[in-house]
């Protein structure tokens, strides 16, 4: 039905690509190949197995523009509002572009490099080495689109043996004049035996429709530790396609925390690949959603090598007409003996109109492994409700207490107290 509209929009995307290519950073050949792939595949729709419950094609209509210069001012005051942890390093990606003015880098600890990715892929050898190495453009049309058209983002490098407890917050903020697409691209490299904490947050200012096709590549070096938080708190007119592609080396620990606390349409593709023995990864996710929000979490944990451990816990509270999807793939390759891989997805439905689609997919090709998965979707536990009511707690408070308790299992995993408090407050306001 909307095939015509799709082609039109795809065409205009590609036309804009041709126009802007000379001004875009990095390898033009790579960009061309990626654009070609996108042209061939098109924008995914519900006919695609991986996009069965979320339809980017229906969203990406011709009213979205690509000119990132049509933007409103973003002030230091705005940024201050978005800062989540007092003692932190703040990087601002404004409308998909690294903002040097809003990202004061005068007090960086030794061993940490932060720069505009557009500069880094040209002049920084480490950035060149890692860029586009983990997120392959032929993995998904949105990876292709980002690879072809990204105009900015940040490169974060934590040098070998450098262990920092100061969180680095990457604030993605959109404030456009007309409906627009922004495609930021980030690269985070945590070298051998280094430790880092990164918070990626996503915000919008104002009511203008925004489509963010964001991509972050992560490299976790041997024996490194990396806590990676993603806090999605965009407004009601925000559409987000979020890809995180991580490569985890031996004896390292990579923790991801994905909190979807805003936005109308959010698709998260979180892919983790173990490349050496004894890697460990934890994936936590929470999506308390309401109204007509659509949230789709696709995760892939690829145990390509032996002796790695992954543990995944995603929880959803789905109210009104909201729709949530969880699709968790775990691959255990033939060589990946002694793998431990666990996955849990639990959902509470608060309304008859709410929807949850949950699909665990375990593909195990090794025989000496420990793997498990479990999913559940249901209403608030009636026995627990009665127990609380029988102690004088009113129905609404009892329900709130139980939902809060359900969500806390994920929130409790957050190691930064300020961040935990912030998330709790957001959850409270969503559940009200």
């Amino acid at each position, binding site marked *: 039905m909307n095939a015509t509209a799709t082609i039109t929009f795809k065409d205009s995307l590609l036309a804009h690509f041709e126009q802007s290519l000379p001004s875009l950073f990095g390898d033009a050949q790579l960009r061309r190949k990626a654009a070609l792939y996108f042209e061939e595949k098109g924008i995914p729709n519900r006919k695609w197995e991986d996009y069965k419950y979320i339809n980017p094609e229906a969203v990406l209509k011709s009213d979205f523009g690509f000119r990132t210069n049509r933007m409103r001012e973003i002030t230091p005051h705005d940024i201050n509002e978005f800062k989540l942890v007092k003692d932190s390093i703040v990087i601002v990606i404004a409308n998909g572009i690294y903002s040097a003015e809003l990202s004061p880098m005068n007090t960086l600890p030794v061993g940490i490099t932060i720069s505009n990715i557009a500069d880094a892929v040209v002049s920084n050898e480490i950035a060149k080495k890692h860029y586009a190495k983990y997120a392959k453009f032929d993995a998904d049309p949105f990876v292709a689109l980002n690879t072809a058209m990204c105009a900015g983002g940040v490169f974060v490098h934590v040098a070998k043996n450098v262990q920092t407890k100061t969180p680095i917050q990457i604030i993605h903020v959109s404030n456009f004049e007309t409906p627009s697409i922004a495609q930021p691209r980030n690269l985070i490299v945590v070298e051998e035996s280094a430790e880092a904490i990164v918070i990626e947050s996503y915000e919008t200012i104002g009511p203008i429709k925004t489509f963010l096709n964001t991509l972050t590549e992560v490299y976790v070096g041997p024996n490194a530790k990396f806590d990676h938080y993603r806090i999605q708190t965009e407004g009601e007119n925000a559409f987000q396609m979020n890809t995180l592609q991580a490569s985890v080396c031996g004896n390292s620990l990579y923790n991801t925390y994905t909190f979807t606390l805003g936005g109308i349409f959010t698709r998260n593709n979180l892919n983790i690949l173990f490349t050496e023995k004894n890697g460990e990864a934890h994936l936590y996710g929470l999506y308390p959603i309401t109204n007509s929000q659509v949230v789709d979490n696709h995760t892939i944990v690829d145990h390509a090598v032996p002796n790695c451990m992954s543990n995944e816990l995603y929880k959803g509270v789905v109210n009104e007409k909201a729709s949530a999807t969880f699709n968790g793939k775990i691959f255990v390759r033939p060589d990946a003996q002694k793998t431990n891989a666990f996955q849990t997805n639990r959902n509470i439905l608060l309304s008859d109109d709410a929807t949850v689609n949950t699909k665990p997919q375990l593909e195990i090709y090794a025989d000496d492994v420990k793997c498990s998965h479990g999913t559940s979707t249901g209403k608030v*536990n009636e026995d627990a409700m009665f127990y609380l*009511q*029988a*102690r*004088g707690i009113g*129905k609404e408070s009892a329900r709130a*207490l139980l939902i809060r*308790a359900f969500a806390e299992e994920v929130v409790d995993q957050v190691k930064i107290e300020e961040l935990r408090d912030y998330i709790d407050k957001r959850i409270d306001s969503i559940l009200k």
Partner: protein
Amino acid sequence: MITIKNLHASVDGKEILKGLSLEVKDGEVHAIMGPNGSGKSTLASVLAGKSEYEVTAGEVIFNGKNLLELSAEDRAREGVFLAFQYPVEIPGVSNINFLKTSINEIRAYKGLGPIEPKEFLAMVKEKQKLVELDGKLTGRSVNEGFSGGEKKRNEIFQMAMLEPSLGILDETDSGLDIDALRIVANGVNKLRDAKRSFILVTHYQRLLDYIVPDFVHVLYNGRIVKSGTKELALELEEKGYDWLKSESVEA
């Protein structure tokens, strides 16, 4: 305290209580005994306001109020306390937070402000001793990972904290060893006074060795078929329930 008249209640369309009448005065302890399936636990649940039970006839007057018109939470706020036969585990809600919420909602209902944290903690400390409850348990999630005995002690601890005017104990003795039974009974005895009343629902006479009732009633087939004093419980222990079944058929 509470007057139950001709109470009829069903669950899933099946009538369980078939005209039950009972009067409990201030400070009295009544034991309700009876064979399995006679409706003992249904009575406890109906009084506490569990929604899956439908009251089809009769009335319950609690301290001058029509109890059946009140929500479960309002019954608790008015002073009805049900000690559950199977206390529910609630992961993620700490015992302490749960109790504070409970006390404050009951206080708000009575037009009182929230309890002072200091007063609350002192109360917790005092009441824990009553049932010899480990202080560590109160910091944990409600009933999560508690042993059977700990769960029952936690019920009595909650009762001590909420200071109800009517305590309904639903088979609190089931699954308890003799030591735990003594601790639980001791806790209940300490809460007995001239004002506070209790309804003890139990299958066995054993509990009544420790909590001596003023009256004993036998529930059979949804009605009280015999009432007496504590001696009746001993007679039941000796003869079982069968002789009453034949008696009630004749009646």
